[in-house]
Every structure is written in structure tokens, then in C-alpha cells.
């Protein structure tokens, strides 16, 4: 079976990373991979723009760890854990954001089904995690409340 070192829009090889560091590659060359349309798409169009489809299966094997109430919508810690096999990528969407796609993690052959980061969530709404594995797409979501800052906010 072919090693998944090159995913569509995926991983840079060691040589690429070195070249970037040395300033030999322009952002355009490396980031031909950066899915501009997906990151700028609004509402439900974001998923379609990234994956080409919105067909997903809800999965109980995707655990999203995020606060029930975000103390500050600018920094919301989110972790996604899954044991679904043949995992290719994990993507995070904040449905209430002007452009919902926040981040997409392309996972190499040895990577486990786990990512953690901190994202901006504009207001109360769902944080969706889409797992692409074995060519199929699975989803889970978590409600995150975002409050207005009060006297301390």
C-alpha cells in the first residue's frame, strides 16, 4: 500500500520545509495547498468547499473537549480525539463564525486521532469536528456558549 506521505493539499516533505526555512520557496509554491476558498466560505458552504461534499455520518467515536461556556471567545481550547481507523484529517468548524472553517489537520501515516488547539468563536453556537478516514467523513459537534464580557470583560 502506498505510504500516505502526500495527501491532497497535505504534507510537506522534509525538503520542502527546509526550503521554506531557507527562503527558497515562496508562499505561493508551498501554499498552492492552502484551501483559500474553504477558509473564506460562509456558513454551510465551508464544508463543501473543503471536502467537495457535505455528506457525513455522525460518530460517537469522536470526542470534542471544549468548555460549555467559553470565558473569552477569543481563546477557546478545543481538543478532538477519535479512534476511527485509517484517519486522514481532522477539521474544526465554528458554525457561528463569519467563515466557519477554523483549522484542518492533515495526519500522516503514523499520526494518532488527536489534535488540540485554541480557536476564536464569535458567539454561542456549535463547534463541529469532521474526521476524514478511509475516504469517508464522520462528524460530531459540541455546543459552546460565548458570553459577553461583563465588568471584567
Amino acid at each position, binding site marked *: 500500500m502506498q505510504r500516505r506521505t502526500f495527501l491532497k493539499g497535505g504534507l510537506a516533505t*522534509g525538503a520542502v*520545509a527546509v526550503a521554506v526555512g531557507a527562503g527558497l520557496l515562496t508562499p505561493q509554491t508551498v501554499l498552492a495547498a*492552502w484551501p483559500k476558498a474553504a477558509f473564506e466560505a460562509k456558513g454551510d458552504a465551508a464544508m463543501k468547499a473543503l471536502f467537495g461534499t457535505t455528506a457525513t455520518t455522525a460518530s460517537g467515536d469522536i470526542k470534542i473537549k471544549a468548555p460549555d461556556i467559553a470565558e473569552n471567545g477569543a481563546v477557546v481550547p478545543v481538543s478532538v480525539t477519535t479512534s476511527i481507523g485509517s484517519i486522514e484529517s481532522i477539521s474544526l468548524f465554528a458554525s457561528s463564525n463569519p467563515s466557519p472553517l477554523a483549522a484542518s489537520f492533515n495526519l500522516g501515516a*503514523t499520526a494518532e486521532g488527536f489534535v488540540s*488547539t*485554541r480557536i*476564536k468563536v464569535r458567539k454561542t453556537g456549535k463547534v463541529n469536528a469532521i474526521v476524514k478516514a478511509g475516504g469517508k467523513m464522520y462528524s460530531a459537534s459540541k455546543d459552546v456558549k460565548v458570553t459577553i464580557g461583563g465588568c471584567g470583560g
Partner: protein
Amino acid sequence: MAKGIRIRAKTKGGVTTVKALMSHPMHTGLRKNKKTGKKIPAHFIQEVNCEHNGNAVMTALWGPAVSKNPYLSFKFKGGAKGDSIKVSWVDNKGQSATQESKIR
């Protein structure tokens, strides 16, 4: 602030956990400068590449919704103490940074 990247890589039970903290404003392009009233142009990391001993392990594609001074963590099977972990990023302005660390 300088373009710092802090990396923590630990291996346990055959799985290596990598955590990275990067210095970057991650401007969305939507906020206004309070003094001038002008919009602060979008300036955010678009791609983060992570390598283990020179082999790509994970690529993160980011939009401006990732928080300022972004954090990232992921895991992979394998990795031994002393192995190299390299994290590099490129942003929408063409700036880049890279940092290398050893697995503990």
C-alpha cells in the same frame, strides 16, 4: 515579539505527544485599530508543518480563527528519546519560522 516557537515533545508507551506554542498575532483582518480607525490587515499563519526525524508527520492548515499566539498538539506512533521534532510555519504575508527540538 520575535517569531518564537516553543516545542515540548515527550514519548511514552510507544506514542509521542508533540505540543507547540507559536508567537503570532493571528489578525483576522476584521478588527480596527482603535487609534486610527483603520482595519488591521489580516496576518495569520496558514500552514504548520511538523516533522519527526525529517519525515512529515502532520500538516495543519489554519485560518485567522485560530487564536493569537497559537497552540497546537498532536500525537504519533513511534519516536524515541533524542529524536528530532521540527515545527515550521508560513503565514499569509510570506513570513516563516522554524524550530527544532528533541523528544524527551
